[in-house]
């Protein structure tokens, strides 16, 4: 093992992340090289110093209380018991029910307001996320984790890693070649990304299970075209720098083949 390699692997070694074979090799190297051993020691000390001295910021108690209160308690609790709070004040229970009632009221209002806030933004957030994923993959040249033009390779690869099995269509006859697939994380869930190619343009097709069956208006963001549709329980988001007409064609073909 060269010194460069040893130096590079020391981090994984002190973090306990090196595989057993390399660990043995590195330890043999350490036994023979006091200077690398000393470097390893310093690295351990540094890691220990960070663990010991870096601030761990615990959340303020009021924040956790506020967030707990903002989590929707749901309408059914409220509907089951609301009448109790309207009862005449004769019962013993009233005194402790009153704070509970106002708490529930605040929670309900927060919930309703939060719903109003979140619903319309959901699409926008997903748009941003799929766009970011597409751009990131293109910039880093990491467009796919499994490279294959064969739908029967890509589909099982994705199915093995997801809780659902995304449909993978072969559209090469129409000039849209499948080049591979990857995984990503959109809207806080793992999703499948199928990567197709038209000339020099990559098309990312994001797929995940949805309930609603609807087709949305196409979007354009920062020079990228975006198409969305849902079919057979799967939502599809298409992102590409391909022109609008061709991407439309692609979306139609894809929907027909799904």
């Amino acid at each position: 093992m060269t010194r460069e390699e040893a130096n590079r692997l020391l981090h994984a070694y002190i973090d306990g992340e090196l595989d057993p074979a390399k660990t043995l090799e590195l330890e043999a190297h350490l036994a023979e090289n006091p200077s690398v051993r000393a470097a390893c020691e310093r690295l351990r000390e540094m890691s220990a110093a960070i663990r010991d001295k870096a601030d761990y910021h615990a959340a303020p108690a009021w924040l956790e209380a506020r967030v707990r209160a903002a989590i929707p308690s749901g309408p059914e609790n409220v509907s089951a018991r609301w009448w109790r709070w309207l009862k005449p004040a004769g019962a013993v229970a009233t005194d402790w029910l009153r704070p509970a009632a106002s708490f529930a009221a605040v929670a309900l209002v927060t919930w309703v307001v939060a719903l109003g806030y979140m619903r319309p933004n959901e699409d926008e957030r997903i748009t941003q996320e799929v766009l970011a994923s597409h751009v990131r993959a293109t910039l880093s040249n990491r467009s796919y984790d499994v490279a294959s033009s064969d739908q029967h390779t890509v589909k099982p690869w994705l199915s093995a890693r997801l809780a659902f099995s995304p449909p993978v269509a072969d559209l090469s006859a129409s000039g849209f070649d499948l080049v591979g697939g990857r995984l990503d994380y959109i809207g806080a869930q793992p999703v499948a990304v199928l990567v197709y190619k038209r000339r020099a343009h990559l098309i990312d097709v994001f797929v995940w299970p949805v309930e609603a069956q609807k087709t949305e208006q196409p979007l354009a963001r920062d020079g990228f075209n975006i198409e969305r549709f849902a079919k057979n329980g799967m939502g599809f988001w298409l992102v590409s720098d391909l022109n609008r007409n061709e991407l439309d064609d692609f979306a139609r073909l894809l929907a027909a083949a799904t």
Partner: protein
Amino acid sequence: MLATDSVLLHETDPVPVRETDPVPLHETVSERKRRFERLVLPHFDAAYNLARWLTRNDHDAQDVVQEAVLRAYRFFDGLRGEARPWLLSIVRNSFLTWLQANRPADTVGFDDGFIELIPTDEDGPDVLAARNFDRKMLNEAIAGLPLQFREALILRELEDLSYKDIARITDVPIGTVMSRLARARRLLAESLGATPNISGKQVHK
């Protein structure tokens, strides 16, 4: 980056599909909330710590965490495997959304493939003897690290997460986690005043 000659544990593992608890079939809203409180809220401090280190101030960290936890509740059914890394990945996403809205200039270069690192000798372990680290200086130095190195370091050293979990949270390959940690420690040592040849070794070519 290291995919061809994997030397790290779990580097080539497939992404597992694990269920924590099966989602109960007839769960009422309040039962769902209780389950969320039991599984996810114990990690509230971890969420806050990450948000605080990413935003570098209390006020913004509070906003990011609140948004993240409510988002986590909405996507609670998507929870697979352990709750802490899952929650932290949502915190990180919420942070990126917040960053885009509030500090768009800072997003330049973050998660950018071009600055992805090839591990070099430069990232070797020539770090300063740690006993010399002053608490305040150390905290300032960590806060001064570029985002992607800071988050890797915090997740590793303060949350004690595996490379595999960090890779999933930060959405990069495991090999990249290793090179980011190496670079983070290197930068930290430099900003704390260590020089590359402090150990008497030769300066890099």
